[in-house]
């Protein structure tokens, strides 16, 4: 498991990173936490000439508040996100998803932005940020631009980040007081989810006022279960009502078939897991 030779660049500012990226273009790869890139390199599935490490850019780390939003630096580790009190208070769905993301070693190396930029539809962060209507801050030589989560995930492992751009932070609209649950279905603990459902719910006295539901590994990108979200509005947080609404969870999805289950089985799982996630999020 020896990667092909590459040159290693470690800029300390976003500007320098962008310059390096502009200079080496197609021959370069950005490394954040390295939890996906290193296996790719070691298995020689790719052999970039340059690897640009964002690890020394301090400004890309940390969680801050900006009005109605939380801003999570792209290089903040999963572990730091998972234990951040602001995230727990205003975006509990992310805290819940990170809790079961991979294993402790990966959570200490892997980064929030890196995982989202990798855009594996089985990754645990896509569905929660999609459900929370996050905005992705992408920086290029011309400055910053913001892309909604709905537009960020374009296809399998493909995002709106341009060749000469870097994902620098993710803005999460505060969902203060919303209940949240990430229902992850795996065979062994360290596995990618076969299917997972991210649900966050604003309940008013036993009634669901608003619901946001993201689906993991149910298509080539993270998906929203919008039909279920709408069907839940005004419903009591009871098993029966939520079960009925969750029946359409797999609507419009196109899940993969692999060793862990075929597409039909995943569609079935989505309905069961959506019910469980919503009920748990609603505290029922």
């Amino acid at each position, binding site marked *: 498991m020896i990667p092909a030779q590459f040159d290693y660049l470690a800029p300390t500012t976003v500007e320098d990173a962008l310059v390096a990226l502009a200079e080496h273009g197609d021959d370069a790869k950005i490394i954040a936490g390295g*939890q996906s890139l290193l296996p790719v390199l070691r298995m020689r599935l790719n052999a970039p000439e340059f690897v640009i490490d964002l690890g020394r850019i301090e400004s890309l780390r940390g969680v801050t508040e900006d009005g109605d939003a939380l801003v999570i630096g792209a290089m903040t580790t999963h572990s730091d996100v998972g234990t951040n009190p602001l995230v727990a208070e205003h975006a509990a769905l992310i805290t819940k998803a990170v809790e079961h993301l991979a294993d402790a070693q990966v959570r200490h190396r*892997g980064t929030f932005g890196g995982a989202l930029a990798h855009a594996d539809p089985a990754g645990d962060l896509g569905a929660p940020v999609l459900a929370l209507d996050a905005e992705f801050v992408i920086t290029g030589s011309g400055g910053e631009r913001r892309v909604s989560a709905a537009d960020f995930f374009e296809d399998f492992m493909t995002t709106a980040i341009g060749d000469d751009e870097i994902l620098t932070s993710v803005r999460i609209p505060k969902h203060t007081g919303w209940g949240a649950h990430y229902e992850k279905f795996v065979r062994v603990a360290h596995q990618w989810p076969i299917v997972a459902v991210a649900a966050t719910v604003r309940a008013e006295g036993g009634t669901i006022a608003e619901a946001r539901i993201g689906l993991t590994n149910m298509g080539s990108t993270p998906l929203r279960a919008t039909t279920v979200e709408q069907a839940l509005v005004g419903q009591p947080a009871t098993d029966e009502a939520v079960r009925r609404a969750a029946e359409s969870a797999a609507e419009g999805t196109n899940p993969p078939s692999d060793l862990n289950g075929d597409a039909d089985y995943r569609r079935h799982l989505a309905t069961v897991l959506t019910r469980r996630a919503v009920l748990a999020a609603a505290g029922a």
Partner: protein
Amino acid sequence: MTVTEEPQMEIGRDRRRKEDQRLITGRTRWTDNITLPGMLHLAMVRSPFAHAKIVNIDTEEAKKAPNVVTVVTGKDLGEEQGSLPNAWPITPDQVTPPHPPVAIDRATFAGEIVAVVVARSAAEARDAAELVDVDYEELPAALDLKESAEDKVLAHPDLGTNKSALWVFDSADAGTGGNVDEAIAKAREDGIVIEREYRQQRLIPAFMEPRSTVVDPTGEQITMWSATQIPHILRFLLAAVLGVSESKVRVIAPDVGGGFGGKLQTTPEEFITMVLARRLGKPVKFTETRSESMMAAHHGRDQWQKLTLSAEKDGTVTGFKVELLADLGSHVSLVGGGVPVLGAFMFNAIYKFPAYHFQVQTVLTNKAWTDAYRGAGRPEATFGIERMMTELAAGLGVDPLEIREKNWIKHEEFPFTTVAGLEYDSGNYEAATALAKEHFGYDELRAEQQRRREAKDPVQLGIGVSTFTEMCGLAPSRVLGSLDYGAGGWEHATVRMLATGKVEVITGASAHGQGHETAFSQIVADRLGVPFEDVEVLHGDTQVAPKGLDTYGSRSLVVGGEALVRAADKVIEKARPIAAHLLEASADDLEFKAGRFGVRGTDQGMAMAEVALATFAAHNLPDGVEPSLDCDATYDPVNFNYPHGTHLCAMEVDTETGAVKMRKYTCVDDIGNVINPLIVAGQVHGGLVQGIAQALWEEAVYDDSGTLVSASFVDYLVPTAADTISFDVDHTTTPSLTNTLGTKGVGEAGTIASTPAVVNAVVDAIRQFGVNDVRMPCTPERVWKAINDGGGGDGGATTEAAAPHFDDSGDTAIADGAPE
């Protein structure tokens, strides 16, 4: 003189393992840590195709790469590389294809070596391997075991068949029982016949340390370090195959990071490293990657089992017929077809069957070759019979423990000769079962199961039973000879008394994680009355431990330990006349106790350490006595060794998703006397998890082009502590009668017993939906489909595709990622 206190016995103490500090921290001599002056490195070029003609190999570009010394193909090596050995041709007419370490004309599985790059660094070798241009012409591949058995596509076209050997045991022919077909015919009239077909999926041993070999040809002797379980067998076969004098070859297995049977092999990589080191006259190293290990180190299991059990209406079994297809993979490897044959004697398990028939057809395919994997033949057999006894109980509507009790050998019936012709020396199935039931809370869990059924709870409970026995302690040499195995089954030990009173113990067993250094120290400490700390156990180097047959088949303690006991006892007898001489007493008046020769009826005596020093000095020895206390013993077991136990498992099945969750696992194993309870607990826990993993998680899956789909730990699901529960482990003790210490093997027991216990529990939970089997591994998808298809469905096949988490289809500039 003071009265010596009775020292605490070492045997039975839960000593922490001596070897663990260095093994756990990794600060020790693993093969890959060895670096020699001028050492060269190898990288293998492997076939991506399951079956392909090698039309041409262009090595020119690779040879020009920086610091490449040479690139060789199978053609270049020719006869020099020899043919990898099969030590156990199970029938005289076994079809055994030649097995060159580097393929010459044809690649026969995806992963087979077709060329080798030698360079000054491992990275340069790897880089250059990418430049070797192989022109393949793809051939149809024999992949499916059943189809291959029908010779639809040939794995080796020139052989004309995929069928390697048909091995048969029939109790009527052997005179050990009746005619099974008659028993089945009679049961069809007035009894009950259970017929099932089970799949033993292919498994990957997945040892922690990938295989690694270093060869130094620069001395008078060629030295090979290898991450192997079998340094002695390897040395013998290197010499035999390559025509080097055995005396010129030294093999060292330094610390070895696990094996599970997966390092019970003489590998192409070892032969290639040896051949190239000799050719080049320089030290050479090869260390495989994890991907190579998954793809090309041998796999385990892989059988179809067609089973027919006949019984009277009262549940008394009258006959059992076993027809197996066993997938050898592309070649007949070291033990090869012998693995299923080891199961032939165990399908009858703990039961008194009057008639028995076993046959196995071994089959060549274009997949990685199979060989020993923890339990080797016995897990397959135990699964088959324990699933069938449960099905018989279900068919008759009685408790699965009741049907077992009706048919098992009662404890007063030992020694008992089975229908497979083995003599079981001891056992007490009643005691183990009673204790297990009590620990488990069997009746309470049955009551809860009933409540959940009645309430139509989405989570149903199932209870699985496995009352196993196994044959271990491989093996009486005469028995191996009668089965046409190419070697004996004895073991060797030496005890050396050093002048300082320390003891060096040399064993021919070759530990790779078992804890021999600790357990053997305990045995010798008690035997010679020396402190535990004063015993040093040496192993795994053919120059230090010149005789031995290595470690596998739960043999180290029951065979190697017995050799050790005998060598230690010889030391005492050798020391006795010297002690008598020095004490001026008659040897007959000496009593050896707690490390001291005492003169009966006096307080005079002499410690073993004093005798050792006096022997070393040799100033005052009796006439004609040599100045040495050192002794050897070679022990050939008279019988196998038969651990047994009762395993009870409760599984919860989420009927909405098919997810299964272990609720409780109790095992009561009878492994005779225990040397070190802590090591035994480790073996039992690890063994259980490995067997549970077969039931629930692990499977080596090939797609229809013959590519291994489960080729990394992303898709080959090895469990971690997070996936298991706390096991309830206890023992009954019926000492073995065939060795001095009364011990039985424990290395494989957990793995052999647990798989059917888990599957029986899963099936028990959902039998109410018309299900009578779930194919292993019992994935949630299979369980859910079995529930919803009803009608005896086993959940069937899964999609032979892996999740592409490391695909690199993403945008170049955004590579990183840190999903999981």
